[in-house]
């Protein structure tokens, strides 16, 4: 198999990287772009970390892989139970498994939703896991003990710090910015050190790492890096933070260089981000709007004891869970889903929207939302609304929002019970934009080329092709052949192989159900292919 690297950069965007390459902050990346292929990489319908990375490593859209957000809920119950998505919720085979079963070795570091870790031919160090649970979530388990013996290894810096992230979400204070950026430089270094150790001691055919610090820096420090920011008007503190942010990208450039040089000139290098980034200047408090328009009722807290009431009020301010479910027909579950869920009555007489009224209800809600205007400019605040079927076509879209909102500034919604319903942010923050990045470099890859935008789902077939493996017939992503030279493609014609396998993590009854669904889907694919509708 041909050695292949996937360097994931969470949230990376050419909007920032282009100027950083131009001004000498990222000289290695500049060289890589000049010697390779670049393109925008279009994210999932809601450009969000979990669904987007899983689409990248499965070649399927969230409607098929089943991951839509950070949190998951059984919304059919009277009082929904919320928890985090994990690896067992992914309904499609990952590229780690595709490589393993074709006798290759795969190593994956810091990828989202990789716990509990899958058993693969290689290793898994999951992302989004707190240090207290890292030991149990690394595969193989003895690898943790081996890493612990290394002088560079500091699991508390390597792992996800939920407290710190929660704090950052609520807004960090001016005096905390310095530590915030420095922490992310140290954390990326941890992952770099682990990666290089593993490349030297446990080499794989496909080695994939996800550096997630850029996303954090952009969220909190967008204005310090935005090319349109008036840097010459920055005060001393702003200039210092900008310089620290640039230090982060200088360090990242060095880590990328170290990894690519260690892999050697024969390796093919692919760099990709899950989504892009850009400025957000207003916030839409969607649950407050739904309340005002009669779709949502907050739980009456007056009946609770005083101490419980105070606790509950704090939950309500930040959370959606204390709703009066009997009187709620539509609600937003999380900031990150950018979606509205409709409570459906499963049986006659139940609370919720009766199934026969669902389509009309959804259409009316959509029209009302699209009519909302920003009070100052008078412009629509929502660019587009997608139904579940439009945003996430597939066999496993039952956990997707009924409506996915694309805000005018691509910002995240707010789910808080606050007014005003539409508010200008006190200062511009960074938010997820759909256009991520894609770079490719190495033997057989064209040089200094800029291609039309690719789909995030294309990354799996690209990596499989680079490795010299078959591309499963049921991937939604395609192989953009113009990444490679014509000679290379002629010498190495792409091969379509057997469909992907049902993940091992599904329980027996889930596997049976999915096999039946997949067989049906495959038959439809075959028929469409035979009829010439798809290639």
């Amino acid at each position: 198999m041909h050695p292949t690297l996937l360097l994931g950069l969470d949230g990376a965007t050419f909007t920032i990287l282009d100027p950083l390459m131009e001004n000498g902050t990222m000289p290695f990346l500049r060289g890589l772009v000049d010697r390779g292929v670049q393109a925008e990489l279009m994210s999932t319908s809601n450009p969000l970390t979990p669904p987007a990375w899983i689409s990248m490593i499965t070649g399927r859209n969230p409607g098929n892989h089943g991951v839509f957000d950070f949190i998951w809920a059984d919304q059919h119950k009277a009082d929904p139970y919320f928890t985090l998505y994990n690896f067992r919720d992914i309904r499609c085979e990952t590229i780690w498994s595709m490589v393993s079963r074709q006798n290759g070795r795969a190593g994956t570091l810091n990828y989202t939703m990789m716990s509990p870790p899958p058993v693969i031919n290689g290793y898994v160090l999951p992302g989004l896991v707190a240090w207290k649970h890292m030991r149990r979530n690394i595969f193989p388990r003895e690898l943790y003990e081996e890493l612990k013996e290394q002088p560079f290894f500091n699991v508390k810096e390597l792992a996800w710090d939920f407290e710190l992230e929660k704090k950052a979400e609520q807004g960090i204070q001016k005096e905390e910015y310095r530590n915030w950026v420095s922490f992310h430089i140290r954390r990326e270094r941890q992952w770099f050190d682990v990666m290089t150790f593993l490349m030297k001691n446990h080499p794989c055919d496909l080695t994939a790492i996800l550096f997630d610090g850029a996303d954090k820096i952009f969220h909190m420090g967008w204005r310090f890096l935005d090319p349109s920011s008036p840097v010459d008007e920055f005060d001393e503190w702003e200039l210092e933070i900008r310089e620290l942010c640039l230090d982060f990208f200088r360090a990242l450039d060095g880590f990328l260089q170290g990894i690519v040089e260690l892999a050697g000139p024969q390796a093919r290098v692919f760099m990709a981000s899950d989504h892009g980034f850009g400025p957000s200047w207003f916030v839409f408090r969607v649950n407050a709007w739904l309340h005002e328009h009669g779709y949502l009722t907050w739980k009456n807290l007056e009946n609770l004891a005083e101490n419980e009431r105070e606790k509950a009020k704090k939950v309500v301010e930040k959370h959606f869970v204390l709703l009066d479910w009997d009187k709620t027909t539509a609600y937003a579950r999380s900031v990150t889903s950018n979606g509205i869920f409709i409570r459906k009555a499963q049986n006659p007489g139940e609370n919720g929207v009766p199934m026969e009224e669902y389509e009309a209800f959804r259409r009316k809600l959509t029209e009302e939302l699209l009519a909302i205007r920003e009070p100052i400019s008078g412009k629509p605040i929502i660019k587009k609304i997608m139904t579940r079927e439009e945003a996430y076509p597939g066999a496993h879209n039952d956990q997707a929002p009924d409506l996915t909102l694309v805000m005018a500034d691509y910002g995240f919604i707010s789910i808080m019970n606050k007014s005003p319903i539409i508010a200008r942010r006190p200062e511009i923050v960074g938010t997820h934009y759909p256009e991520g990045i894609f770079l490719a470099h190495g033997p057989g890859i064209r040089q200094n080329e800029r291609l039309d935008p690719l789909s995030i789902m294309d990354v799996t077939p690209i990596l499989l092709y680079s490795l010299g493996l078959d591309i499963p017939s049921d991937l939604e992503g395609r192989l953009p052949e113009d990444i490679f030279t014509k000679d290379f493609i002629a010498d190495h014609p792409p091969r379509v192989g057997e469909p992907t396998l049902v993940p091992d993590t599904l329980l027996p009854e889930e596997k049976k159900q999915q096999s039946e669904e997949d067989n049906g889907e495959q038959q439809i694919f075959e028929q469409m292919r035979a009829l010439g509708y798809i290639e």
Partner: protein
Amino acid sequence: MNQESLIPEQTILSSLTEILQDITADWDTDFNGPIGADTKLVDDLGFESIDIVQFIVAIEEHFQRRGLPWEDILMSDGRYVDEIKVGDAAALLYPHLNKL
């Protein structure tokens, strides 16, 4: 399910104890005693909600069961119950693991 194929509550308790010992093996906690039926997840082991999420996944993996009604077992009003003991969790899990 017949009587012989039921998972005894004591077996569930032992499994939960083993899982918790494994989870907390390298934590810096002040808790010195052995983990048992009276151990409180929050007060004794310092569990936070993210730890409970991991505990739930570990239980489901151990018993090869998913979709257990955790909202009845560990939650109240959308929040994890603070005072839950390991023995309580075993007792609450018993009917669900045995599909009673």
